[in-house]
């Protein structure tokens, strides 16, 4: 999954990538969603495959053809737009959330791009009677260097539960304000983004159906 060695922690590229993720989390937890959308490339792909329980030798532990998310910019904008309406009941009153971002490793990718792996723990609390929920996930991000700084071109989220213990996934956006749509200045940030050079599906995805994906037990008593 990971080619090459991670950059040393003192490497300016690693420091910039780490700061990008921390600043992104700060924007989300501060409900500055216009700012968050501005960190995304126009050609972003935002993926979260369904994780499954398989035998150790099966060779896959995610579904290649089914995700919790498989989003482009249009879909992400719609999700933001929805939460900004007066009728998105599931986040009104909004969740209280905290994104904890750790275990950041940065790798050189194609051209000036950086591939950044991180661990995410999302705490979510709603109302006053419900138990809070946690989502633990790994993320593999592709960060692109633009004239305006780093921008997120691709994110693949490897969630650590096969059965999510949270009411829904309205939370990745964390929209809590009424400040309206991404501003024109936010939009201009996307203009520096190049076309996608997105890598293929991660190796732990389920391979296409067929005999090749079998992990059959050959031993007979």
């Amino acid at each position, binding site marked *: 999954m990971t080619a090459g060695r991670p950059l040393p922690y003192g490497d300016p590229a690693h420091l910039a990538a780490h700061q990008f993720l921390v600043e992104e989390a700060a924007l989300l937890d501060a409900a500055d969603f216009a700012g968050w959308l501005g960190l995304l490339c126009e050609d972003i792909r935002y993926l*979260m495959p*369904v994780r*499954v*329980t*398989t*035998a150790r030798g*099966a060779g896959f532990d995610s*579904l290649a*053809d*089914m*995700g*919790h*998310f*498989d*989003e482009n910019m*249009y*879909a992400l904008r*719609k*999700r933001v*737009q*929805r*939460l900004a*309406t*007066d*009728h*998105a*009941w*599931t*986040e009104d009153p909004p969740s209280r959330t905290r994104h904890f971002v750790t275990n950041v490793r940065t790798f050189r990718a194609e051209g000036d791009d950086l591939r950044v792996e991180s661990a995410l723990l999302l705490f979510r609390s709603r109302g006053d*009677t*419900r*138990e809070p929920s946690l989502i633990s996930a790994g993320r593999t991000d592709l960060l692109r260097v633009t004239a305006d700084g780093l921008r997120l071109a691709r994110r693949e989220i490897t969630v650590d539960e*096969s*059965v*999510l*213990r*949270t*009411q*829904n*996934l*309205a939370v990745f956006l964390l929209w809590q304000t009424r400040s309206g749509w991404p501003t024109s200045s936010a939009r201009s940030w996307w203009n520096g983004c190049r076309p996608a050079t997105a890598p293929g599906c991660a190796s732990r995805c389920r391979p296409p*159906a*067929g*005999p090749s*994906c*079998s*992990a*059959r*037990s*050959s*031993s*007979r*008593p």
Partner: protein
Amino acid sequence: MLDLASVVSQVRRGMIPAHVYADPEIFAAERDRLFARSWMFLAHESEIPDPGDYVVRRVLADSFIVARDETGVVRVMFNMCLHRGMQVCRAELGNASHFRCPYHAWTYRNDGRLAGLPFHEEAYGGEDGFARAGQSLLPAPSMGTHNGLIFISLDPDAPALPDYLGDFAFYLDFYTRQSPAGLELRGPQRWRIKANWKIGAENFAGDSYHTPHTHASVVDIGLFREPKASKRIQGALYQAGPGAGTTYKLPPAGNEHSGFADQLRYVGYPDAMIPAMAAAWSDRQRALVADSGFMPSAATLFPNLSFVHNWPQIDADGTVAPFISLRQWQPVSERETEVLSWFAVDAAAPDDFKRRSYTAYLMCFGSSGMFEQDDVENWVSITDMAAGSMARRLTLNSRMGLTSEGKPVKPPLATFAGPGVAHQGFGEYGQRHWLGLWADCLSRDAR
């Protein structure tokens, strides 16, 4: 102390004691009288296409292996070792010729038959001491398939599946047989919600009334192809056999000859798929869509398998793409439900259609879906409120469509093309139909 007879009699009048949505005694009765005897959906044959493919699914606390054996036959086996009771298969999907228990290595073929056990000769004295022949993981007491849908019942005396499905089979075809190739299921997404399992099942059975308000946000953002509440209120609500569902009233078709194709094009089916749909469906099924302009949307097959068909706009160009989802409200407890939500698409559909349809599904339903998010918010809140003392003093009115004397506010549709009974306009007909089946189950003996 639960007075079940009183609860059942109130429910039959469309008055629902609110505590039924969070009551452990009701849940125990449902487990013993309803889930112990009903036909339950487990999987679709497309999830296990090749010999040795399996998925593991539950009926409440009972785990079953659903496997395609070496000869291609689908088997459903209770996932508990005959020897000491260990869970034999602990993955949720894969491919295996055999299942070997981790405890003492008793090993079963993928058709359930016991293939061997260690030291059979030395420890058991061979066949004399323990005859392997005829030993098998317990098969599901009853099993049946329809359009590739695999159902089981824990009741060995369950009615035959076709008899159970009855008139609802007519409506099942709209979701599960759009061509002779049948359905392809992907997923499921699985997540747990702190809601009683009945609420989702009832909602999909007939609650067109919630759409304009609960889902106002998706109208606001232009995702919904049918933004006008009037489209919803003009839809027909039908109840047939063990199921009930909703439809949308589509705009009038071009002319009597093009009606069927026009309606399917309107909701985003490409011309490449329409001839197969026309061939797969009967005259009456085509007439429902073509002549009446009723496009099936949400439905529930009692007890806990629901269907949804909708057609959002998935890009800035206004491309309309239809999708189908199957979803199961799998009870965990009286206050918690595991939702299993599959994306379903005609197996013979063009690849670019499958992609669009998948996008439409993810935007609308499932763990991240923009419709589903707000549905579940309601269901969790109802369950929360139903758990206290005051809920035992409140009876929820589910009588929409009936006068206080119990007469219909308006007559059923006289010319509805499908079987069963249908009404046009809002009304809690489908929910009462579902609740009537629920009351029937709770009135019979426990198993």
